[in-house]
């Protein structure tokens, strides 16, 4: 038994994701089979809707439809044509810039959020998440208006006599800013748990023992927050690799990303061979990033600690020495009082303003009397909202989105819930591998998943059905739901079950009378998170949809291609409102649990 996890660990290191999946298979086999059984449905789902389609994609990338079987011609073509090499390079560099900026800006915000009270933190988080709630399309068109040569920013720059106000758009810089705008909230959310879980007592103990502020930060806080923050940065990088809407609308002539190229090949040229090769390249780039991050930061925590504690600790030690020698380059926020203590707060508030301001500019545009989008709008009509409510197409799209969202939420809560239920009680390396398996959908950009699933669903004539979109969304929701539910099950007191059993409760009674009532708020939160993920998802709907009924984001996309009217903003405002309400429901559910539940 002891050799098994060791081997699994080695496999994970050697071959990355696939190795981990293999490890998880072994995990299921090796452990008590009965207790691992609930993992199976979710695991099978991952295999059918992610692994097999991806294998199929890899197959079509090395299988020339015209020529004779096996060939790497598509990859050769990608590297032979300078333009494509350029796109690859641009994609990597834009994704890296986004990662550095999102992680760099997100880190102080996460530090600051971790020091806040639960209630204040939730409010701040709500503002930070705001860009997430707006339709990706409306957001991009808002940039076009706000940064246009007659827009408010250009006007301000003219007023201040700063040149260049008429050329803010369509360049690399604005593309990266617009991408960071979306990725920053994600980065903050993802790294926050790593920050809130750092024990404050540890820091005060260090202070008591006379550690300097620089040492406390660099030698204690930073190393402890490093792994989670690195994971968040990795997530940002992986997401940035698959972007295609923002660069299409805001990038300049040279700013073409791989995602756009995939759309061009598949949608326009029907070149599945080359399109698949591009998708494989994205996955490979992501895989390399995962492997590097894991090698450096030991993401899964599966490796035994050696000697001084590994590379990341060495890095923070070096940083500590550097910062001490730099004298005043000391983050002072870990101590109370003093102007430095306000710095992260100020920093965070300016980031929050950066995130919220464009949205505050968007909302009034839904009430404009002008026939097109302008800023500032001439307010005073509900016309656009009425038009939305009266249009059967929009309403049908809204209901489709709701249906698909509910289906995806139900399915992902069941699949991830069962898995989280059994993994929460396991520990050690095998459990970590199980967790990793359920995180795999996060490692593949949605555009690649959508492309891969397209051929799967096409084989079963399921393209353009609600079920296809629903199943695709379920896959995207699973990691999100799994994370929430795993935390819930981990904080559940399993002795309650034993106590109930001792008192003569049957298994079903324990389930319905004890476990489910206590865990219910977490289930609600997971379901709402899944619904939100599905409700605003465009990429899958774009590839897999297009049938009788489209989802709301898809309908918005179709509308955007032809005309941008304030109607679109009105719809976006409706979506924002719905999402906000649901978000509040989810938060309430989680708070009540924290207040009333155990742990």
């Amino acid at each position, binding site marked *: 038994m002891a050799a098994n996890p060791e081997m699994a660990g080695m496999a994970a290191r050697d071959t990355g994701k696939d190795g981990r999946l293999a490890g998880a298979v072994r995990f299921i086999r090796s452990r008590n089979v009965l207790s691992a059984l609930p993992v199976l449905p979710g695991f099978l789902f991952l295999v059918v809707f992610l692994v097999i389609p991806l294998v199929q994609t890899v197959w079509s990338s090395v299988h020339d439809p015209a020529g004779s079987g096996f060939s790497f011609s598509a990859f050769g073509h990608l590297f032979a044509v300078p333009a494509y090499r350029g796109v690859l390079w641009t994609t990597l560099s834009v994704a890296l810039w986004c990662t550095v900026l999102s992680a760099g800006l997100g880190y102080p915000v996460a530090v600051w959020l971790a020091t806040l009270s639960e209630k204040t933190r939730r409010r701040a988080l709500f503002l930070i998440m705001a860009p997430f709630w707006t339709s990706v399309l409306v957001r991009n068109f808002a940039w076009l208006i706000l940064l246009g040569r007659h827009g408010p920013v250009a006007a301000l720059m003219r007023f201040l006599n700063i040149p260049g106000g008429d050329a803010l758009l369509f360049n690399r810089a604005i593309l990266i800013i617009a991408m960071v705008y979306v990725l920053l909230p994600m980065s903050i959310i993802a790294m926050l748990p790593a920050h809130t879980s750092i024990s404050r007592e540890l820091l005060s103990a260090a202070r008591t023992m006379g550690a300097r502020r620089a040492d406390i930060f660099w030698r204690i806080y930073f190393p402890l927050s490093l792994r989670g923050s690195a994971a968040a940065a990795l997530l940002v990088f992986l997401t940035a690799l698959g972007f295609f809407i923002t660069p*299409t609308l805001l990038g300049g002539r040279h700013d073409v990303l791989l995602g756009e190229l995939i759309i061009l090949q598949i949608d326009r*040229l029907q070149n599945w061979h080359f399109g698949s090769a591009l998708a494989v390249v994205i996955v490979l780039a992501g895989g390399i990033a995962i492997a590097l991050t894991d090698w450096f930061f030991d993401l899964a925590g599966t490796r035994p600690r050696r000697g001084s504690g590994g590379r990341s600790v060495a890095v923070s030690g070096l940083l500590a020495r550097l910062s001490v020698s730099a004298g005043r380059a000391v983050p002072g926020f870990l101590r109370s009082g003093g102007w430095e203590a306000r710095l992260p707060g100020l920093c965070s508030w300016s980031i929050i303003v950066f995130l919220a301001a464009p949205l505050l500019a968007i909302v009034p545009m839904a009430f404009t009397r002008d026939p097109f*989008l302008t800023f500032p709008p001439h307010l005073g009509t509900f016309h656009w909202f009425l038009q939305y409510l009266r249009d059967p197409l929009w309403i049908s799209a809204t209901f489709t989105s709701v249906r698909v969202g509910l289906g995806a939420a139900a399915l992902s809560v069941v699949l991830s819930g069962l898995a989280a239920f059994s993994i929460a009680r396991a520990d050690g390396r095998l459990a970590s591998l199980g967790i990793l398996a359920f995180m795999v959908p996060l490692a593949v950009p949605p555009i690649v998943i959508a492309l891969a699933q397209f051929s799967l669903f096409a084989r079963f004539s399921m393209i353009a059905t609600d079920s296809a979109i629903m199943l695709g969304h379920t896959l995207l929701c699973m990691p999100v739901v799994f994370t929430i539910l795993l935390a819930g099950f981990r904080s559940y007191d399993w002795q309650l079950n034993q106590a109930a059993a001792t008192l003569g409760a049957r298994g079903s009674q324990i389930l319905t009378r004890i476990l489910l009532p206590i865990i219910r708020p977490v289930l609600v939160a997971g379901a709402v998170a899944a619904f939100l993920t599905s409700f605003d998802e465009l990429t899958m709907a774009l590839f897999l949809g297009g049938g009788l009924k489209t989802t709301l984001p898809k309908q918005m996309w179709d509308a955007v291609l032809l005309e941008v009217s304030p109607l679109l903003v009105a719809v976006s405002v409706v979506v924002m409102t719905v999402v906000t309400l649901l978000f509040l429901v989810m938060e309430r559910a989680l708070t009540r649990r924290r207040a009333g539940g155990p742990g």
Partner: protein
Amino acid sequence: MTSGRMGQTFPTLLTRRSVLAGSGACGLMAAARRARAEGVSALTIADVGAEPSAAMRRAFYEPFEKETGIRVIAVPHAADPVTQFRLMVETRSYIWDLCMLNTEHVARLQHDGRYFEPLHLTPADTADLLPGMFSDVWLGFSVYAVMMAWQTASFPKGGPSSWPEFWDVGRFPGRRSLCRSPAATLELALLADGVPPDRLYPLDVDRAFSSLARLRDHVAIWWSSGAQNTLLLESDEVDLSDTWSSRAQAAVSAGAPVTLVWNGLYVTDGWCIPTGCPRAGIARAFVRYCARADRQAEYARHIANGPTNRRAFSYLAPERAAVLPTAPENFKGLTKFDAAWWGENTGWVAERFEEFMLE
């Protein structure tokens, strides 16, 4: 590979009209009766969505529902519906009975195989259509132009009136934008280089790219969607641009002070029926219905796309006709976009265009 074929003209108007009025209407009612007898109560039509769909609802869908009792369900298809259409036929899942395709889509699909049901149009159905506006599997009903637009205020003494002038950055300084797609853009580049419109095809791709290279660094914005183009014109983000006629017209009607120049290409949208469609009979009747002059005139009242039926203009006020691409005055400045050429050459030209953009 023909996306259009010359219509045969009947010797006398009288015969043609009586055929249209008599057997045409009877044919429609008969087709509707047959369809209802087979239990067909609705047609599902994939169109481009948004504003054109609203116009089609008023001009075609609703009147058709009233006359035949067959309901019309309109759904928007993807911006490029070729993949969806192919898949639908290959998997035999007929989610659409009719699909709105332009000549380029038709050419690309015909290049790959047999995807269309024949329309069985009679000479009477097509007698009044402009040349090249129908084939045995496709019937055009909506013409748009790829043309030029400029901000009236930016050129008080008058802006460019031809593509060589659009390319002349010295004489007409200003922020330019062009479509980020080789189709039509290469044609404009050739026109700018002095190629006469009737000699455009087959495209001299090298010459087109070298012409485009002269302007490339003067193009501030490469637009990628019709909506973006409209927004650029409406918000005065660019001084001069290429544009699609109905989108430009939308900007003008919304109050944007933009001057349109009827110089460029025209592309036609039309109906196709997927091969093997179980409701092909009534779908054909619908296609014939859309060829009618009165219906096309109604359509052109709601959206500034040109009718393909010349007689439609007799139902339209002269002011309205003036903004339509197929009005004789405008139509003479436009050249037919050769979809067949693009059907054969899209792949490598698109690749070269991407390279050109990234240079």
